[in-house]
């Protein structure tokens, strides 16, 4: 049994406000020209018409978070003895991600595995994840750089979301995919959506076809090991790369982090913050040695992680949702899609580079 | 640099006892191509009685006039009267350095003073802005009989920080101006000695003593007239000469001229135009033998006089060792 509701466009704001009363709502908001996932505030302008620059992952996995704060205290009897006070309470608000795209939802699914399917599940992440509901919007149009269908995702992919919303003339059909989703659809603002389901199916199908036309069918050919390990290949591929972290920080599936302690006199915090494998510092060792000293090796790791290593760990799943953000956001338009495709041929060069 | 136009504050004395100062100033500045614009509705500068009673009032009175001038195009104010001048300069300094005072004063005024007016004595304007050369070039008449003692009085160049003009103890501007007009200037030691004018009423006998001392020194240095830049000095030395003679048994008959009058004569104006007839001690004998020279000759003699005075730094002083340059350099070498 699937519950469906219908949200009239003119009621969109009202609905989001209602959600906001229950939980912290993350939605794509307009900031001058850029569309960014941010906590919705009364003055926010929500923009669903094009994919956001950034992914919604920060809602569950913030750019930086305090794991715990600490304070050194002296034993009042004996100043030689130092006591440490720890505070690791995590206040987790209910969170709704509104207007994600299927590729965003896929991204979160990718991160989920990393933080849960391990011998040391991450309490901070999981606590937030448990309290998060994802409302995903069917992608009407492929955007520059989109290639989700090639990596087995799609503009109407429902598997990673709680609610699927599909745009129709004057409203959205909202289909609950999980019990979380159903709870969210419990709202007087919504009309019954059953009448619109057929229409929505159509829209979803059309969207899917458009994307196939644009990006092609899922490509399941395995990566060619020889090419993958060719130094030449990566040097050529990385030639113009600037080595910044735009791709990783915009990516919905990247989850690498760094942990640092920040202390001033007697107080301090342990910080966990995003890190990027494209940075030199990422693998810099205390000795000063760096196993990935050249950007070619760093690029190999980034793409290798998405198309090889992750799959090796989690039964063949590709850790890329084809959202194309890294392509659109890259100062030198590095194309992960092209490189990935080239990896599969036994060419040793990046196709399209000639 | 000569500034074409100045705001001209004559002040109360020049309306009355010192009218000839006012006349002569206007004449010579006209001749020197300087325009004087009188501020509308100017009032007391606050120098004398107010100054003694209430400094805020005195400041406000001065500031009122400054505020008026500030609203005229020309930024520089000139006044012949040293008393007015120091009243203005004091008010300006306090207004710009002490905000509390400025606010207090401005509360009393209908138009506030922002602190944008530069005040100069008319003597300074002629000496610095117009310049010796320009003055010399206007000279048409020589005054062979004049042996001048330049008397600057107590406040023209003091206090140094405020006056910021000439040497506080040994001023030389008038000496040079006169020299530039071909007048013989004597080395007068009491240039800035007090004549007592301010105490004319309460302490008469003291004033007579001081005045006598000044006049004696005038004779001692071989001068036959005193040239001044201050209406009070002029009035005091001129008006009281008879009293001094009576009280001290002296027999002075020393004409007391404004420097502007002497310049006026040198520029060829008549004593009547300049208002010399207003003087108590007659100036006739002094100027009887003045005669015009052919421009050619005059200019040449004046030129070298200018050079001479410029070179010496001060008119007529002895050159024996240790000469001034020597001692000057002495310490520089030391």
């Amino acid at each position, binding site marked *: 049994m699937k519950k469906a509701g219908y949200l009239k466009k003119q009621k969109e704001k009202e609905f989001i406000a209602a959600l906001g009363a229950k939980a912290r709502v993350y939605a794509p908001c307009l*900031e*001058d*020209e*850029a569309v*960014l996932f941010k906590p919705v505030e009364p003055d926010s302008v929500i923009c669903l*018409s*094009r994919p956001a*620059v*950034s992914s919604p992952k920060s809602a569950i996995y*913030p*750019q*930086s978070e305090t794991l715990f704060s600490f304070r050194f205290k002296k034993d009042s009897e004996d100043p030689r003895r130092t006591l440490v006070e720890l505070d690791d309470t995590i206040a987790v608000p209910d969170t709704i991600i509104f207007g994600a795209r299927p590729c965003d939802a896929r991204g979160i699914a990718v991160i989920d595995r990393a933080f849960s399917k391990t011998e040391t599940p991450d309490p901070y992440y999981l606590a937030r994840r448990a309290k998060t509901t994802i409302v995903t919007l069917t992608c009407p*149009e*492929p*955007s*520059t*750089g989109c290639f989700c269908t090639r990596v087995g995702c799609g503009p109407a992919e429902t598997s990673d979301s709680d609610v699927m919303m599909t745009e129709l003339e004057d409203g959205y059909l909202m289909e609950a995919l999980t019990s979380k989703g159903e709870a969210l659809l419990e709202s007087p603002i919504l009309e019954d959506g059953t009448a619109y389901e057929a229409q929505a199916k159509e829209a979803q199908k059309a969207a899917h076809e458009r994307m196939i036309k644009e990006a092609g069918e899922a490509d399941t050919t395995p990566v060619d090991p020889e090419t993958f390990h060719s130094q030449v290949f990566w040097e050529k591929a990385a*030639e*113009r790369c*600037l*080595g*910044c*972290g*735009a791709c*990783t*920080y*915009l990516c919905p599936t990247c989850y690498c982090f*760094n942990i*640092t302690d*920040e202390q001033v006199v007697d107080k301090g915090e342990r*910080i966990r*913050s*995003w890190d*990027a494998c494209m*940075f*030199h*510092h990422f693998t*810099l060792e205390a000795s000063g040695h760096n196993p990935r000293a050249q950007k070619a090796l760093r690029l190999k790791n980034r793409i290798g992680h998405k198309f090889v290593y992750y799959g090796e760990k989690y039964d063949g799943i590709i850790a890329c949702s084809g959202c194309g953000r890294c*392509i659109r*956001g890259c*100062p*030198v*338009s590095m*194309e992960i899609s092209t490189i990935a495709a080239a990896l599969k041929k036994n060419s040793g060069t990046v196709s399209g580079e*000639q | 640099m000569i500034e074409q136009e100045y705001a001209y504050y004559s002040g109360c004395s020049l309306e009355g006892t010192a009218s000839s100062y006012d006349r002569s100033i206007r004449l010579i500045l006209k001749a020197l191509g300087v325009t004087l614009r009188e501020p509308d509705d100017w009032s007391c500068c606050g120098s004398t009685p107010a100054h003694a009673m209430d400094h805020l009032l005195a400041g406000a009175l001065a500031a009122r006039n400054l505020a008026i001038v500030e609203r005229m195009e020309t930024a520089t104010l000139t006044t012949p009267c040293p008393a007015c001048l120091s009243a203005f300069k004091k008010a300006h300094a306090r207004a710009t350095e002490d905000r509390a005072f400025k606010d207090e004063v401005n509360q009393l005024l209908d138009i506030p003073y922002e602190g944008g007016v530069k005040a100069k004595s008319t003597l300074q304007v002629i000496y610095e802005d117009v310049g010796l050369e320009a003055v010399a070039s206007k000279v048409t008449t020589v005054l062979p009989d004049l042996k001048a003692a330049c008397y600057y009085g107590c406040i023209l160049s003091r206090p140094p920080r405020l006056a910021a003009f000439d040497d506080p103890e040994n001023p030389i501007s008038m000496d040079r101006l006169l020299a530039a007009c071909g007048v013989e200037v004597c080395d007068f030691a009491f240039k800035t000695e007090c004549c007592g004018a301010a105490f004319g009423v309460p302490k008469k006998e003291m004033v007579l003593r001081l005045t006598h001392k000044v006049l004696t020194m005038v004779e001692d240095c071989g001068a036959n007239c005193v040239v001044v830049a201050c209406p009070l000095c002029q009035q005091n030395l001129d008006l009281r000469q008879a009293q001094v003679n009576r009280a001290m048994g002296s027999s002075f008959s020393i004409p007391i001229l404004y420097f502007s009058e002497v310049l006026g004569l040198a520029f060829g104006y008549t004593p009547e135009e300049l208002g010399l007839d207003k003087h108590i001690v007659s100036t006739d004998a002094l100027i009887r033998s003045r005669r015009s020279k052919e421009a050619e000759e005059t200019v040449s003699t004046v030129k070298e006089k200018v050079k001479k005075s410029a070179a010496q730094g001060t008119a007529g002083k002895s050159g024996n060792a240790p000469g001034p340059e020597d001692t000057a350099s002495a310490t520089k070498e030391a």
Partner: protein
Amino acid sequence: MNLEKLKEIVRTVLPSVDVVIGYKKGLDALHPVPCFLTSPDEIDALVLNPACMHNLAAYLPSLKNRAAVVVKGCDSRTVVQLAQEGLIKRENVVVIGVPCQGAVSVRKVLSAIDHQPVIEASFENDTVVIKTKKGEARLALRDVAPDKCLACRYPTPVVADHLAGEEVEPKIDEKTAYQEIREFDARSLEERRAYWMAEFDRCIRCYACRNACPLCVCRESCIAETRDPHWMSQKATQNEKMMFHMIHAIHLAGRCTECGECERACPMGIPVARLKKKINMEMKELFGYEPGISMDDKPPMYTFKVEEEKIEEHKIR
């Protein structure tokens, strides 16, 4: 911009260098990308149009060997500045200059076409023609040129061993060059503060601005990331974001050649180039210095005069 002439030059230059850095087609016509030519048969892939925004001189310091580089007016200043600071050897670089009528800002184009996916783009002398599924849009170059071009005083490269095209006269004089900054200066302190707080708030510290900057030579050693010295933490707070941008701006004092790459590279569209331009304006006023103009200038922060004509001692009030 004359592509044929350029190809010709590259053909003659290529034998004498190890690599020629130019542009080739990227994911779409609006996104040409830097390319590194080593063999003649790659030459035909070269493109040259107003969308060629990248400052290719940025790659020079990391190159060991002899290279030729295609530079616009603004980029050429980078070459000069790098040489001036001894970060490249002028004799190791063959400069191929392209006089420039002004580039296009992808950001401005997209907003002009309401962020529709671009199907096709072509350039006629002073217009850009964009095809989207909503139809064709003809945009005047002027309207979609990045701010740096609107204030450009060096459309013709200041150094060039070869010139691909006719010299272009600057349309801007010295005063108007900093107009934008002066107008911003005129805003109230609070406005300026609020403005930057909002802008910095978007920063994700991906360091694209830094890595795209041809004069950020610290690379791996950038103090925004090191622990020793430990100038800042990895917290994503306003303080840290602001601190980072202050570091970038101040380290570029008297060095920024205003190529605008930092701003273009920023995925969040933060106008970071302004910070450097403001300092440049002050450098010009204080020391009459403009970065990247003459090979034998000395960057003002690394020298001094015993008597500084323009620096007066400050009063507390």
